[in-house]
């Protein structure tokens, strides 16, 4: 029972760590590159405009998709590792 509890706690901790990293990237591409850091990235040109504009209209969405699939794949591995899969 205790080991079960410790196992569940460790699984949850690993999940929260993965979520934290994912959300840092989530915030970095949208609130960072596409908005607050846009003036700093103005020098990098992409198709007639700057990198910040690309992140605002394309880059963020593509990154979001990557983040969710990475999370789903990684969590499936964690589920098996900790023996909590269905």
């Amino acid at each position, binding site marked *: 029972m205790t080991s079960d509890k410790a196992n*569940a706690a460790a*699984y*949850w901790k690993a*999940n*929260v760590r993965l*979520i934290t990293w*994912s*959300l840092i990237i*989530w915030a970095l591409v*949208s*609130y960072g590159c*596409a*908005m*607050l850091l*846009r*003036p700093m990235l103005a020098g990098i040109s*992409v*198709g*007639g*405009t*700057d990198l*910040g*504009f*690309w992140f*605002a*209209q*394309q880059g*963020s*969405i*593509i990154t*979001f*998709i990557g*983040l*969710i*699939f990475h*999370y*789903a794949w990684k*969590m*499936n591995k964690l*589920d098996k590792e900790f023996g*909590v*899969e*269905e």
Partner: protein
Amino acid sequence: MSQFAINMLFVGASFALYIGIAIWARAGSTKEFYIAGGGVHPITNGMATAADWMSAASFISMAGLIAAGGYANSTYLMGWTGGYVLLAMLLAPYLRKFGKFTVPDFIGDRFYSRGARLTAVICLVIISVTYVIGQMAGAGVAFSRFLEVSNSTGIWIAAAVVFAYAVFGGMKGITYTQVAQYVVLIIAYTIPAIFISLQLTGNPIPPLGLFGDHAESGLPLLQKLDEVVRELGFAAYTADVDNKLNMVLFTLSLMIGTAGLPHVIIRFFTVPKVADARWSAGWTLIFIALLYLTAPAVASMARLNLVTTIYPQGAEAPALAYEERPEWVKTWETTGLIKWEDKNSDGRIQMYNDAAPAFTETAQARGWNGNELTVNNDILVLANPEIANLPGWVVGLIAAGAIAAALSTAAGLLLAISSAISHDLIKTLINPKISEKNEMRAARISMAAAILLATYLGLNPPGFAAQVVALAFGIAAATLFPVLMMGIFSKRMNDKGAICGMVAGLVVTLLYIFTYLGWFFIPGTNSLPNTPDQWFMGISPASFGSVGALINFAVAYGVSSVTAAPPQEIQDLVESVRTPKGAGGALNH
């Protein structure tokens, strides 16, 4: 065949398909009615969720908003997709593990409180009812433009079709019609975009064309667009915005609001396993991205098309003569969504930014006497095939697509409302002994009542239709999302904390919105003018949902830390929600 006949054919065929699916997918039990039996494949659910989520606003209005606002309105693109990251990681898998039927179900059980459940039902109904008004109105616009019926006839037809598959099929019928509706709407949206991208940039993939070169001038498309709009006194399309705080908070409100929308959350209850809920969120975003990556391309290309149509030889040369205007301008003039007024009586159409003081001198030198053309943002997508001179069947497709987008979202919202009423209000709070058969009947009756209410509101739209959508996102962000998240991520969060948090978030957000938009949206009753210099720290009312969410979190933590911890069985419930093991069994309650 006339255009009207083609439109009738496309819309009629799509309706026959939806009704056929409804007959095939009749719900036989409450489990089928509420969550489609819980056996929907993650990719199927992804497609259905994409249609559920992409409303008349996404299909009809969004590209027009981006075309008008350029970079500044990228907030919609990021806000309405970034919410799925939150949903996939913070809510969907755990709520699926919990394994019940509705969003208030989780809030009521997790916070062991009838008051919390009732508060959640009230928030859900406010959010979903305000949202559904826009769908009925959107369907009405599409019907009246393409099928030559009056707006109200259009709304009645839409209500009858939704009635046929939602009342009988429940979530099961809705799921499979949404899959069909997704296919219809995505084809309708992308085909005209591909042709326009080919015409302007030579690239058949619109998102690549957006960052490609303009075929005629050889310049990058966005650089060309920046040039032509600046010549007319407008801000550059890619220009940066000054008020970044408001931009951040608005995007955050849309993201948190999206993740907190009940009709989207319940779609993730229909997949068999926790792992499926995670994958399904990814698939949903892929299906949404097909439209959301196309929309900014449509926006910039349509804006460029419009300017070059009005000024065929550039802004310095004489503008297009009114007599020579293209056919699509004439069609849309009859709807009143394009208006022309010859202010300088030269018989030509001048379109420029007459509100920019720096441009007044140039305009006067050119003999212009004010902007003469107003184009409603909403026609951009609907008129796209005509602007690009595409064949009649593409126009028919757009008609079916716009109606599919409105109906699929309306059905999802109506199910969220009816399940909250029959399951949470009637079964759990009023009459727990109700039989399965009677609960089904109650669900169908509440669905029918919700459709009638939505139809009534669609026919008599409150004057504030645009504002209420901001209200729906603001309330979802400030109430449901924070309590759902804390219910999963904080074992210590108790009933009092959750209720105080929800009420605080709701009240503060409503007060802020009412202060600028009028008390209960009654025009003229606003306490402060709704202008950026009057906003608190430059935060617009539509951006305030994220502030409401922060207040909700803060109040909930404060109150729960000074009151008793939740009982042991609730802490065990949180533990069980956090691990996927055993989700299949949890369903059979």
